C-alpha cells in the first residue's frame, strides 16, 4: 500500500519557524509501523529528517510523538490502523521546546522526574541467611502487586505531554513524575513515605491534576495513570499508603 506522511519539520539552523512537509511512500506493508515510515523517508528521501528512536519495540521510550493528534510511540503504531490508503500526520509531543523536527528538549521532563526522589530509601540492615550472607527483604505477593502497574513506566513522556495542565504550566511535575513517585510510595519496602507525601503535596504537584484523563489513554504501556495519581492524592489525605 502507499502512504502519505505529513510531518512537522523544523531545523534551527535553517528555518525561522516550523512548517509542514508531505512525503509519499510506496509499497508499504500493512504491518509496517509509523517508525518504519519515518525511516524510509530519512533513508530514501531526506536524510535531514530528525527523530529519536532506539529499540523500535516499545520498551526504550525514545520515540513518543503526536500521531494524528494522539501521543503514541512511533514504533508501536501499525499503519494498517489508518485504513487502506493511510494518511498520517506526525508532529513533536507538545509542551516541551522543539530542538529539531520531531526531537524535543527532554530536560524539563527529566528535571521533574528527578524531583520526586525516584529511588528506594531503606537504610535498615538487610536480613541475613543461615549462611551469614545477606538475603532479600521479604515482600508478599499482594504487596508486590500493589505497585506493579507503575513499574512499567518507560519515561517516554507521552502522558505528561498530553496533559493540558502541563501545557498550561510547565512547573507542574506532570503525570509521569507522579507515576514514578507512586511506584515508591506504594512499595512496602520503602521507608521515606512521609517525605514523599510531603514532596507530592507541593503546589506544582498532584493537586495540579484536574483529572482530565488524557494521560491514561496516552500511555503506551497501558498504565492506569489517572488512577495512580488519584491513589497518591488519597495517600496524601490519609497520610499513609
Amino acid at each position, binding site marked *: 500500500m502507499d502512504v502519505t506522511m505529513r510531518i512537522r519539520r523544523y*531545523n*534551527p*539552523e*535553517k528555518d525561522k519557524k516550523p512548517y509542514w512537509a508531505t512525503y509519499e511512500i510506496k509499497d508499504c506493508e500493512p*504491518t509496517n509501523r509509523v517508525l518504519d515510515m519515518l525511516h524510509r523517508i*530519512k*533513508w*530514501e528521501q*531526506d*536524510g*535531514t529528517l*530528525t*527523530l529519536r*528512536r*532506539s*529499540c*523500535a*519495540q*516499545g*520498551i*526504550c*521510550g*525514545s520515540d513518543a510523538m503526536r500521531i494524528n493528534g494522539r501521543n503514541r510511540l512511533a514504533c*508501536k503504531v*501499525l499503519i494498517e490502523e489508518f485504513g487502506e490508503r493511510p494518511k498520517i500526520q506526525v508532529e513533536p509531543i507538545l509542551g516541551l521546546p522543539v*530542538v*529539531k523536527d520531531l*526531537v524535543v528538549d*527532554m530536560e524539563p521532563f*527529566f528535571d521533574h522526574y*528527578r524531583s520526586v526522589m*525516584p*529511588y*528506594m530509601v*531503606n537504610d535498615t540492615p*538487610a536480613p541475613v541467611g543461615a549462611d551469614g*550472607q*545477606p*538475603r*532479600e*527483604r*521479604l*515482600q*508478599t*505477593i499482594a504487596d*508486590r502487586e500493589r*505497585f*506493579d502497574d507503575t*513499574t*512499567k513506566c*518507560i*519515561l517516554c513522556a507521552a502522558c505528561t505531554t498530553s496533559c493540558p495542565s502541563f501545557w498550561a504550566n510547565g512547573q507542574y511535575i506532570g503525570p509521569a513524575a507522579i507515576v514514578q513517585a507512586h*511506584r*515508591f510510595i506504594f*512499595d512496602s*519496602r*520503602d521507608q521515606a513515605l512521609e517525605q514523599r507525601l510531603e514532596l507530592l503535596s507541593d503546589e506544582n504537584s498532584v493537586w495540579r491534576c484536574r483529572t482530565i484523563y488524557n494521560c491514561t489513554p496516552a500511555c503506551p504501556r*497501558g498504565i492506569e495513570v489517572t488512577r495512580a495519581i488519584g491513589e497518591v492524592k488519597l495517600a496524601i489525605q490519609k497520610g499513609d499508603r
Partner: protein
Amino acid sequence: MAALYASRSVKVAVVSKLYPTRSHTGAALGGIGAALGNEEEDRWEWHAFDTIKGGDYLVDQDAAEILAKEAIGAVIELEHMGLPFDRTKEGKISQRRFGGHTNNESGKPVRRACHAADRTGHMILQTLYQQCIKNNVAFFDEYHVIDAIMAGDRVAGVVAINIADGELHVFSAKAVVFASGGWGKCWETTSNAHSMTGDGASVLFRRGIPMEDMEFFQFHPTGLYPTGFLITEGVRGEGGVLLNGRGERFMEKYAPKIKDLASRDVISRAIAIELREGRGVKGKRYLHLDLRPDTINRYLAEAGETRRIDAHYIETKLAETCDQARTYAGVDPLSEPLPIQPTAHYAMGGIPTNVNAEVIANAAGKVVGGLYAAGECACVSVHGANRLGTNSLVDLIVFGRRAGLRAAEYAKGADFAPMPANPAREAEAELNRIRTANGKTKPQVLRKKMQSTMQDLVGVFRNGPDMEKALGIIRELRHTFKTDLSIDDRGHKFNTDLLEAWELGSLLDLAEVTTFSALNRTESRGGHAREDYEKRDDANWLKHTMVHRQADDSLSVEYKPVTITTYQPKERVY
C-alpha cells in the same frame, strides 16, 4: 552498575549517546540467573558448570565461577536497591526455569532465573539509574563517544560529541569503563535496538585493542516473525513449546533430555534445520512457539508435573510477550501460537578483559592502565562460544560491579595521564570528512548490503566459500564508506544523519572482524556452526581468538589459552 559502585568513592560521569533508561538492557526480559535456591535446591557450582557447558567449553572457568558465585550477592543487592522482583508465597524472590540451567545431579531444568514479570532488564536499568540519581552521579546524556584518548599504555579519557549542538568535548579521566553494548545491527534480522552499533568496541579496536572471539555471535531461537524482536526464553521456562509446521514438538529429537530448554545455539540450529528441510509453518520461514494454557498444561501432564497454569498466569508472568505478540504479529498468544524465527541477539566476543574487568592489550594479558570494559561489549570470557539465557544480566551486574570498584581503586591511586596535544583532532577530522563527503553512496545502501550479507553468509550456519565472499563484500563496503560516501544533513545541531553514518562505520569494522574470525576458526563450537567443519576440535581450537588491526589496515590473529579449573571438556548433550 559500574558507575554506581565507583560513585561510592570517586567522582563519576556517565557519558551516553542515549538517555540512560533508553539502553537496550531494558529489552532483556525473562530473568537474571542466580543460585538462590528459593524454589528448589540449587548451587552456584551448578550455575558455573551450566555456563561452561553452555559455552561449549570455550568459557574461562575461573570467570564462570566468579560469575555464578557473585551472582547471588549481586541479585540480593539489586533487591535491596528496590528492584521489584516477583515473589514466592514466602515473600522471597521468585525464580523460573531457563534454557541450559540445570540441577547437575538429575540433569533436569532448575528454577534459577530471578525475574520481575518479563521485564527484568527494564527493572534493572531503572533501578540502577534511580540509585545513580540518589548517589549524585553526573550524567552527560546524548553525548556520543567517538574516540578513546590513549597515553602510552594507559587511557587518558574519551572524545564525545554533544548531539544537541554538535560540539566536541574532551573528557579527561583517570579511569574509563566501557559499557557500550553489542553490535547486532550488523545483521538484518535482529532483536537489537537501532543503537546497538558497537561504537565502544570499534573505538577501542581502532586504538589498538584487539577483539576477542568475534566469531561467536548468538542467534536467539525465538525472534518474532517477521520483525525479529525477542520473545523471551521465559516463555519456554514457563512451559511453552516449539512446534514445526506439522505440529511436532521437534526439540524432543534434538535434545531428548531437556527439549525446549536446551541452550540457544542448539535450538537455533534445530530450527534452521527444520526450516531447511521444509517443515516451516505453511511453507514459510517460521515455526511456532505455543504458550496457550491448554498446550502447556498438556505437556506438563505428560511430563508428570502437577503444576497447571491458566490465562491470567500467562498474562501477568509474560505481560510484555503478550503485548508484543498482539502489537507486532497481530496474534493473541492465549489463543494462537506465535510465529518465530532465529534472530541475531548477542555478542559473546568483544573487548578482551581479565576477571577484574581490566582491558587487556594482547594474548599475554598485558593490562591497559585505567581502562575497563563490562557487559556485552566485553569478553571476559564467561560466555565462551554460546551464552546461556539470563547470563547477560548476570555478567553486567557482576563484572559491572567489579569494573566500577577496580576503576575507582585505580583512580584513587593515579594522577591524570598526560593529555596529548589536540586529542580530538583525529575524531574531528573523520567526523568532518563524513559531514562534507561528496560521494555518491548513501549510508543506507551500504548498511542494507552489510546486513543482508551478514544474514545470508555469516548466520546460524556458515561455510568457507560463503564467508570468503562475505569478507570481500564487507571490505568493499568499507572502502566505499571511506571513499564514496554522502549524507544529506551537513548541519551541526542534532545531526542524526551524520551519527548514523558514524555508527555504520563502527558496524562495518566489527562485521569485518566477525567474518574474518569466523573464517579463521575451522571447527564448529557453540554459536559458530560450520558446514565444512562440523565437529568441535579441542586439539586445535580450545583457545580464544584475538584479532588486531594493523597499521596498514590488515587484520592479524593471535590466540589466548582457555582457562580450565575443574571441568575437562567433554561432548555436549542436552
